[in-house]
């Protein structure tokens, strides 16, 4: 469990939606350069939110604050607040190991460990101290089924994960994250390295998973955002330019820049 003092700031929940993340005045620096500027936003629970915007606008940097992956970059620094379950994620006292068990992540390039399929899936659980074989076996079956990979791998769980195709590897990485039963799933362009069929499969899975967890996905593929996201946030040069229900944002963008981006005038 997450343990630390409650932040002093009080955040009023926005109407109707139940926010899982409340971001307040978030600034992220790499050294002296500001990559994410003054972002304040709330992301709803059990929904898919897409982050779109031109390359280099800070989408990955923003996404990686939610599981504190930016900690791995020594010169990265964040100010502001990101409230998750009443805790400020940015608090240096926060237990990032516990945080990352609740907030899973899928990367652009499938990154299975050079180990067996089974070992890939149980990595997170073993790190969490789960040792019972029965528990691990069950988790492997359930999460591989959730990632729609069970039928393809049930007979070869001891084979190397690298023997899988790119699309299968990405689904394995999904299963690996799901094994920890995360409450939130962060995805950074998870299908940009995949073929259309594998992409469709991942999208289908996300739509299924959305019923149980919050999903935030960075994508360069506007159709993908339109297909799966309930909400879309448009970033430009580190700023959150526009945020709202996907259909509304795509059909009638309020901000001029969003309109230009969606019509392909830059990107």
């Amino acid at each position: 469990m997450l343990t630390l003092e409650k932040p002093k700031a009080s955040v009023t929940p926005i109407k109707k939606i139940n926010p899982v993340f409340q971001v307040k005045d978030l600034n992220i620096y790499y050294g002296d350069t500001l990559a994410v500027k003054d972002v304040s936003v709330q992301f709803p629970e059990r929904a898919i939110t897409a982050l779109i915007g031109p390359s280099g606008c800070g989408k990955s940097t923003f996404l990686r604050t939610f599981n504190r992956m930016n900690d791995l970059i020594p010169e990265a620094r964040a100010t502001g607040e990101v409230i998750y379950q009443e805790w400020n994620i940015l608090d240096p006292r926060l237990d990032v190991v516990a945080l990352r068990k609740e907030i899973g992540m899928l990367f652009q390039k499938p990154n299975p460990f050079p180990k067996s399929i089974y070992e890939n899936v149980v990595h997170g659980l073993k790190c969490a101290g789960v040792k019972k074989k029965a528990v691990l076996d069950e988790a492997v079956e359930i999460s591989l089924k959730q990632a729609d990979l069970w039928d393809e791998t049930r007979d070869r769980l001891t084979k190397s994960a690298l023997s899988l195709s790119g699309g299968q590897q990405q689904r394995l990485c999904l299963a690996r994250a799901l094994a920890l039963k995360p409450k939130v799933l962060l995805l950074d362009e998870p299908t940009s390295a995949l073929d259309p069929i594998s992409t469709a499969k991942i999208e289908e899975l996300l739509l299924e998973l959305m019923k149980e967890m919050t999903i935030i996905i960075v994508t360069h593929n506007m159709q993908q955002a339109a297909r799966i996201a309930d909400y879309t946030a448009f970033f430009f040069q580190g700023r959150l330019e526009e945020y709202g229900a996907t259909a509304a944002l795509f059909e009638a963008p309020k901000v001029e820049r969003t309109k230009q981006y969606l019509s392909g005038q830059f990107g």
Partner: protein
Amino acid sequence: MTIQSPHSKDLSQTNHWLLEGMKRYRRDLGAHIFIYAVAIFIILASLSLTIFLITKGVQLFTHDGVSLFTMIFGSVWDLHDGKYGALPLIAGSFAVTVLAALFATPLSIGTALFMGEIANKRGRKWMQPVIEMLVGIPSVVYGFIGLTVIVPFIREHIGGIGFGLLASLIVVGVMIAPTIISITVDGLLGVDQSLREGSYALGATRWQMISRVVIPAASPAILSAILLGMARAFGEALAVQMVIGNTAVFPKSLVYPAATLTTTITSSLGETVEGSTANHSLWALGLILLAMSYVFILVIRWIGRKRNA
């Protein structure tokens, strides 16, 4: 070659760009010939070396009538007495190699992990040249330090006369450690950053990430590093000779003299007469060494193939 056709120009008469390929080919030809010649030279050199060693080495068995069995399993080695049992020497060589590897491996992997995983870029930038410099120090220097520092220390604080396997394993262990470190560091740096991120993202601590992902991913490199270190330890003559005591007996204890294949060759070579049985026996020892080196190389290559598979 000229191509004549009513519809095409004769290319050989012009400087046409379509002929650039021909020129390029001629230019490359020189480089090709050089590379092939060098490769053939190297292959021939190692081949003739092997053949030379074999013809010299087998004379002990063919000309002097010593059986291979007595040579490998005989337990008394005494050139003056005509005893050619090399088992104590083989045992000495393996003991030095294995003990040095046992001593150097944890030390080296720890250092390599520090350099590759813990230290920041600046720290690594400082340590890398130091380690590379240590690899380049001639073995006589290690032996000399062993002789003047380690041997007296063992004699005074541990026991025995100081010369022996303990001194050897320390000297050789320290000597091969830089080799193991630098190959292991290369292996660690070769592990894709995305694997580390993937492990962290699943809630691994740094140590869990290192032990469950980085080390397994780098294990082929780490294994080759250890084997390369062992090959070096097995073949090392000078440094070992200075601290092992050079007595061709089974090593009873770590602090009493022993001998290895290499130290016996180097220390006895001057005493034997060309063509004598004793001289042939030393060549036979060389043959054993060569065979062992081939085994080491085969194992390293086999591991390398597994890594690429």
